[in-house]
């Protein structure tokens, strides 16, 4: 699978973008666009779900970091688990800057706590 597939759903006021496929130099701009489109609708929180992602390169990680730093006013969380996603996020130290959860439920719960 060369492509990135992005699905957006909302859990209350929280936008969830689920990514599957590969997030790399080719596809990272698509995630950047999807994040911008979701933020235009003024969510209280944003979650990027990488559970179905098969490859995460540094270009994709940069989108996650930029999303965090450019939107300090909203809750932002990443869902990642496994060798292809949570491991590189830990190794690069990104998981110390961006909140990473192993399940979508945990990510939703954390944002609910922040925005309450």
């Amino acid at each position, binding site marked *: 699978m060369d492509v990135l597939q992005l699905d957006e759903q909302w859990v209350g006021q929280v936008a969830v973008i689920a990514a599957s496929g590969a997030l790399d*130099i*080719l596809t990272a701009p698509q995630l950047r666009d999807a994040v911008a489109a979701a933020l235009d609708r003024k969510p209280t929180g944003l979650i990027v779900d990488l559970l179905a992602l098969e490859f995460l*390169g*540094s270009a994709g990680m*940069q989108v996650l970091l930029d999303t965090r730093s450019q939107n300090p006013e909203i809750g932002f969380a990443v869902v990642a688990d496994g060798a292809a996603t949570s*491991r*590189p996020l830990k190794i*690069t130290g990104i998981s110390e800057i961006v909140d990473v959860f192993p399940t979508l439920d945990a990510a939703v719960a954390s944002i609910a706590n922040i925005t309450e």
Partner: protein
Amino acid sequence: MNSPDRSACPRAPRFVSAGSADVHTATRLRKALAQWLRDQFMIDEVRVGDIVLTVYEALANATEFAYLDSPGAKAVRVEAEYSSSRNRLEVTVSDHGRWREIDPALRPNTRGRGIPLMAALASSAIIEKQTSGTVVRLRFNELTVRTADDDLTVRTADVAMSA
């Protein structure tokens, strides 16, 4: 091809692939390398992921930075060679361009994570700037080759996590 005594004559797996330095080649080589690793080595998905991500980041740098100032033929090449005596895989990613130096202080949003990522994931990562281009030499230690008569017993014994 099968050697009766593989300890005396170990196979030396080798992977060579090249293409134009673009995002599609980077993806194609990433996938081909992943499959080759699974075919050739006793390796778990964590290690496959580490090696493939490291090589991809080198490819991504070649794709994005090597040919900024040099229009024309743009090529990138990946060679992976295994040393049985050292249980080591050496992967070389080479291009014929010059990586542009980017000052992270000036361009805070420019991704500059590829090189630290390579250094963290590989046993060693060396970037050589040559007159003919840029060569990234990545070493991955403690890899065990999959043998022709590999069986479950061997597999279980040798697939130790190399975290």
